[in-house]
């Protein structure tokens, strides 16, 4: 079996929005003649963008974990919690199930994203052939779970809005939650800017030879 033909080899380019297939243009920055959206063979500067965003997300992730994300005040007892201390507190107060949920959403998922993107990026750089299928599955997984890591931010936003009993109890967001939200957004952008097709790109020279 000969290798499957690629659009590039045929001088074709597909619109990612409306699906119109056009001729590969000779000029830069082509647009779809039907819907006007940009036509790109691959996401532009995918690797560098992903790297940059991933790095930024990682930097922001440090204060997100160190700074308190939420202040709960009940009957004057003010309590500032970081993500980890909140999890520990939940665990100690016999809400292990909740602790696990928060832990996986706030710690595991972002870390998983970092690692997965890191693996994907490194593999692309090394033009690795290793576990290409699994890597694309991994990418889809990242896309899927990425939204869930906003859980913490939502919890804080909801509590802040709902728990307003002045003296009795109140919840206030603290800077940590902003950094955490930034982390989540940045990792989402990073995974968006990553082009999974890159995983398969460097196959061609192999096959041609």
């Amino acid at each position: 079996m000969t290798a499957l033909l690629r659009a590039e080899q045929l001088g074709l380019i597909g619109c990612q929005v409306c699906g119109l297939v056009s001729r590969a243009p000779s000029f830069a920055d082509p647009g779809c003649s039907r819907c006007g959206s940009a036509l790109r063979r691959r996401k532009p500067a995918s690797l560098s963008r992903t790297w940059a965003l991933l790095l930024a997300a990682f930097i922001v992730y440090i204060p997100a974990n160190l700074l308190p994300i939420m202040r709960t005040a009940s009957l004057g007892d003010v309590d500032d919690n970081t993500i980890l201390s909140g999890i520990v507190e939940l665990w100690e107060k016999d809400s292990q199930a909740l602790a696990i949920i928060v832990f996986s959403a706030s710690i595991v998922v972002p870390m998983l994203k970092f690692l997965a993107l890191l693996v994907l990026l490194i593999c692309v750089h090394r033009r690795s052939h290793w576990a290409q299928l699994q890597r694309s599955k991994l990418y889809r997984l990242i896309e899927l779970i990425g939204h869930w890591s906003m859980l913490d931010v939502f919890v804080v936003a909801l509590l802040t809005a709902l728990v307003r009993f002045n003296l009795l109890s109140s919840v206030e967001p603290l800077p940590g939650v902003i950094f955490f939200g930034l982390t989540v957004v940045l990792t989402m952008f990073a995974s968006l800017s990553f082009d999974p097709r890159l995983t398969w790109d460097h196959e061609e020279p192999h096959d041609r030879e």
Partner: protein
Amino acid sequence: MTENERPNEGLDQLPQPIVRRRRVSASWIWLVPALAAVVGASLVVRSALEAGPQITISFQSGEGLEAGKTPVKYKSVVIGIVHSLGLSPDRNSVLVKVNLHNSAESFATESTRFWVVRPRIGLGGVSGVDTLFSGAFIGADIGDSTESRKEFIGLESPPSVTHGTPGKSFQLHAGDLGSIDVGSPVYYRRIQVGHVTSYQLDADGKSVSLHVFIDAPSDRFVTQATRFWNASGVDVSLGANGLKLNTESLATVIAGGIGFQDMPGPQDDTPAPADASFVLFGDEATAMRPPDGEPTYIRMRFDQSVRGLGVDAPVEFLGIDIGHVVSVNLDYDEKTEHFPIIVGAVIYPRRLGRAQTKLAALAAKHGDGEDLAQTVGVLVAHGLRAQARNGNLLTGQQYIGLDFVPGAPKAAFDPAAKPLEIPTARGSLSQLQERLDSIVAKLQKVPFDKIGNHLDETLGQLSSTLKHVNTELLPELKGSLQGINKTLGSADKALGSADKAFSSDSPLQQNLGLTLEELQRMARSLRVFSDYLAAHPEALIRGRRADPAPRSPPPPAPPPPPAQGSGP
């Protein structure tokens, strides 16, 4: 082949892309991590800049303190946060490490004080209620010192005066604390102008020192002549004006308090300097009394019971309170085999006022010196005696009265004795009591029983007699009375008849007239006869002679009519 061709042919018919506006360079994306790095770095720098000195405060207890949570506040502004809690090496205290903010570096100096603010509920008020819910925090108060310091010993209770409060602090000395506590109010003319800041037992353990803080501007009313008194509780006095109930304020009744005021009259009214010392008197009356001067100890020996005479009973000289009793002791006299009672008292000669100065001047003139003993000696010679007197008839409380007792027997007085011994006399009431006793004794000798018995017997007899009279005598009396009545009736009749008999037309009356006439005649004839006899005595023997002359008898004939009334 055609299948292969078809797409190739179709490819030519595919639309050409349009030209789009040029996009921004992709390399700008690196600004995002750069920005994140800058923000992260700024956070690090900020926290590094904010970090002030770390100090260690030791407390007796770490109650309510939480690492990483408990703030340190000065005037309700957070100046630091507790970093960690730990025990001291000797396990006697809690070491609290506090991270002060950078701006609060000046608090890490010598005179700064730290204490734990907890809710405190006392009689004088409630403080730190907010900490009930928010949890304890560490309060701080800065001082004047600039000397840097990292180790502090925390106060166990909040200082009652914070640094820089305008006003003055004064020291008071008292025998005991009473119901005063830290925070108890200080009143000037019943306005609260300050409070008690601290108290402690003196080193010798015999008195108490208090510190009070008087807020400006009232601190200028504390002068050299100011007297402080314990205004705690209710002062109830029963005087000639009736019952008087006096209290500084309702709060002092419960929580205690201190009042102060200048002595009446012209006084040294320069404001007292800060930290000046004053005596804290027990009550306002004592405080306002003129100074007593040096006390003199006197002793008295009583031979009768001094029931009702207690320590602190007043000693009065002519009704003026000049001292009080300090001891009442029993003694035994071997010679007389009596139990005399030795009463010790303290008197203040200055309380005698003008009299004392004059007496002293007099004594000086006589060259006796100002010794009280000489003066007292003179007074004793004039009859000065101590008496245990009843001050209150209801309670039997007694006091010592020094008074001039007229006709008191001469008493020995030794002016050299120490302490002075003042001769005593029986109290007026005890004398009265004695007399009453003797009267009672005499009364007791009267055989009331016997008298009673006799009386009873007599009365019995009387009763039987009366009965006898009733039953026997009275009926008889009745009979007699009837008899009398009858008799009287007949008497009445008799009288009636007598009356009839004596009436002018009665035969008796007529007979009587005739009889009288007859008697007249008889008397006339008798006179004639006697005249005849006188003239003729021989007629008795010879008989009557024949009338010589019948005419001679007429002379005696005329007198018969007058002799009719004065008959025989």
